[in-house]
């Protein structure tokens, strides 16, 4: 328990010393992606092997400067999910990719004992080898501020976070600043809400601070529901203390004494790490009553969502924390005036809070040194879809799509050509080739009818049908519509029906106009942000790919060859060897035949899923 500022400083000095003494560090990625790839087994195996050699292993950061051991850590997401499981080696800064349990022995013998690089595990591209993580093109072109610790520190150890400067912003905010100064610093930094809207965080804090009603609340929106987005999850998993620190500082600024973190239930690891982080912070006296001996008290709670996308909307989120159905309500009153339990509430997204500690530590001027004038700082994006380097990236605001997709993302996966990128999830839009050189920031995107949203970037190639993509998002929104207001509940249903008809080859003349009319009505009349933006994917695909809609409606043809009902799959008898592999892979048993004779597909049974095409080694199955 740290009772005052001096004790925190002394604790940090000791932790720094221990951290520096731990010369060799093995950092195993324990983000959701790498865990699925078996990274926890790799962690256990490494521990076993190092111990068997009689070398001292330190898990996390032990409080004993006299025995500098080999630090073995489980970190949050390193970001390069495509190449996982990832293992980082320090002091060299090497990154091993696609590591398997069988590789552990070599890692211990070569790298830990001899200090040599296992080149076979290093990242390679175009015949070149990149041993150091910072050299890899995927990382080299990023600016990691919010994610700076992700993949470098043990996400489960507060001592390690403090050793690299953690909670010094809180210390500064508590003892060297007052609420006005904190709000001014955040306002001057130009930090805008990273959850999608881009509302200036400083202005929001100022508004909450001004409210006379008490108690006030600080709420963190970790209900990252956009399909194809996982930035917030990675921050909560990889650097939970950073976000907590940001929230506590918001508490000081707004005069709040309680904080709530609302996390989706689909993120069990994030929930566990956050709860652990809160317990550690409480134990050290960085959360709780009279933090570090000051008169400021702050308590933190974690609430789990239960699978409702609409709860990402402010008023629905607070309703859910209150134990109600997640229905949005009419505004005003706004959340800053009457939010959680009808009290003044400061509601920001995970990434917004995670930006705060470095702004307080380094000042607003430093923060403005990144990004563009109206959108300073960086933005984390989840890069997914038909792209080579899937993963989590962070770039300065104003970076172009071309840099993200082709330099960092490594270009398209497979033979397909770049067609579009979906940004901003179900509320967002599709950007096309002509937008590749557009600087990504809040205002530029708004001008072209898109939005940064939470930061999901799903890259699509020439095999993706844009009408089907629009249908996919409409289906999502329709499923997630809470049903409170008519425009969204009924309107999205009608739009979905029309889109379903079109992709099934039953589109009619006038459908496009009807879709646009419905879209306009819904966005003008729906109650909340979910409804207002529900039609964006449809409007933007019609705008950019109208000819694809027309081909479906008038020619009953899917130009991308993706719409299942508009295609037929046939086996070329000249190429078929009768191996029966396709018939075994067929989910609906539509393929039959005699072994060593050409097989045939029953088109009445065929659902045109294409799995037989992928299975056939003789390339005898084609879509026509």
């Amino acid at each position, binding site marked *: 328990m740290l009772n005052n500022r001096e004790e925190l400083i002394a604790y940090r000095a000791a932790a720094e010393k221990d951290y520096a003494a731990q010369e060799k560090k093995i950092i195993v990625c324990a983000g959701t*992606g790498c865990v699925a790839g078996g990274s926890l087994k790799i962690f256990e195996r490494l521990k076993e092997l190092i111990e068997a050699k009689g070398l001292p292993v330190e898990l996390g950061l032990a409080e004993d400067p006299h025995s500098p051991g080999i630090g073995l850590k489980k970190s949050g997401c390193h970001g390069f999910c495509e190449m*996982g499981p990832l293992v980082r080696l320090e002091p060299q800064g090497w990154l091993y990719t696609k590591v398997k349990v069988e590789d552990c022995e070599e890692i211990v013998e070569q790298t830990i004992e001899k200090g040599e690089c296992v080149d076979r595990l290093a990242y390679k591209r175009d015949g070149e080898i990149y041993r150091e993580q910072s050299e890899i093109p995927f990382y080299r072109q990023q600016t990691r501020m919010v994610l700076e610790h992700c993949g470098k520190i043990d996400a489960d150890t507060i001592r390690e976070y403090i050793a690299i400067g953690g909670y010094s912003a809180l210390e500064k905010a508590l003892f060297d600043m007052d609420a006005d100064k904190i709000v001014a610093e955040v306002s001057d930094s130009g930090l805008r809400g990273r959850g999608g809207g881009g509302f200036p965080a400083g202005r929001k804090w100022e508004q909450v601070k001004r409210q006379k009603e008490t108690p006030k609340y600080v709420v963190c929106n970790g209900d990252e529901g956009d*399909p194809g*987005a996982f930035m917030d999850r990675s921050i909560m998993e990889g650097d939970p203390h950073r976000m907590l620190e940001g929230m506590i500082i918001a508490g000081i600024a707004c005069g709040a004494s309680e904080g709530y973190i609302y996390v989706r239930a689909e993120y069990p690891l994030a929930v566990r790490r956050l709860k652990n982080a809160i317990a550690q912070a409480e134990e050290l006296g960085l959360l709780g009553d009279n933090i570090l001996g000051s008169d400021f008290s702050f308590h933190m709670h974690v609430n789990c969502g239960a699978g409702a996308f609409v709860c990402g909307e402010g008023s629905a989120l607070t309703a859910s924390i*209150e134990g109600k159905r997640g229905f949005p309500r009419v505004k005003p009153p706004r959340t800053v005036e009457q939010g959680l339990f009808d009290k003044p509430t400061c509601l920001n997204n995970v990434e917004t809070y995670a930006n705060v500690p470095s702004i307080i530590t380094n000042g607003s001027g430093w923060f403005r040194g990144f990004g563009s004038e109206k959108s300073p700082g960086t933005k984390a994006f989840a890069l*997914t879809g038909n792209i080579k380097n899937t993963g989590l990236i962070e770039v300065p605001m104003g970076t172009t799509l071309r840099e993200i997709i082709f330099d960092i993302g490594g270009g398209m996966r497979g033979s397909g050509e770049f067609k579009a990128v979906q940004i901003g999830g179900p509320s967002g839009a599709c950007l096309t080739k002509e937008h590749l050189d557009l600087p990504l920031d809040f205002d530029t995107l708004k001008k072209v009818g898109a939005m940064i949203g939470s930061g999901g970037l799903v890259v699509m190639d020439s095999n993706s049908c844009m009408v089907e993509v629009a249908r996919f998002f409409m289906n999502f929104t329709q499923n997630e519509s809470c049903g409170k207001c008519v425009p969204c509940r009924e309107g999205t249903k009608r739009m979905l029906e029309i889109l379903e008809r079109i992709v099934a080859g039953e589109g009619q003349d006038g459908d496009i106009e009807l879709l646009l009319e419905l879209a306009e009505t819904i966005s003008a009349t729906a109650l909340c942000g979910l409804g207002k933006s529900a039609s964006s994917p449809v409007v933007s695909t019609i705008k950019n790919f109208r000819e694809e809609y027309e081909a479906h409606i008038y020619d009953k043809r899917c130009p991308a060859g993706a719409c299942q009902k508009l295609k037929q799959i046939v086996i070329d008898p000249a190429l078929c060897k009768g191996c029966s592999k396709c018939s075994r892979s067929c989910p609906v048993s539509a393929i039959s035949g005699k072994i060593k004779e050409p097989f045939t597909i029953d088109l009445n049974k065929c659902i045109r899923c294409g799995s037989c095409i992928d299975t056939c080694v003789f390339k005898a199955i084609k879509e026509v």
Partner: protein
Amino acid sequence: MTAKLDLSAVYAILDKSGRKQQAIISILQEIQEVYHYLPQEVFPVLSEELGMSEARIFSIATFYENFSLEPKGRYVIKVCDGTACHVRKSIPILEKLRSELGLSEKKKTTDDLNFTVETVSCLGACGLAPVLTVNDVVHPEMTPDKVVALLKTLKEEIAHAE
């Protein structure tokens, strides 16, 4: 279900929660963790203990996607159909699972209560797309063929347990 349901776990959860109405969602979540669904017997108990109407509790249980009023299988398989998985072909995986287990969009759980197949909108493991989870363990880069192998392993596990 003929045997009377043992509700002691429900009372234990209520005791721990402090019986606050505000905590209803987490109470329901914990109950579901024990029984793998929300048995109808718990609603009157919760109503009485928390002092809120059964209708209100029921409205919450039906609003949130994660709550199930029907028993779920021993293995709950969730196929991710988020954007990233969708563009990397998650639907053939779902179709394969359903056809192998004799399930459909309407019928989500097998009669022997061994398997439940559902879709989720995004698991946030987009880097490994397409993915599915079996009782929350992530299986990356799935294909229809891998589904067959996975089901075989799970069925063997069931046979072993019995």
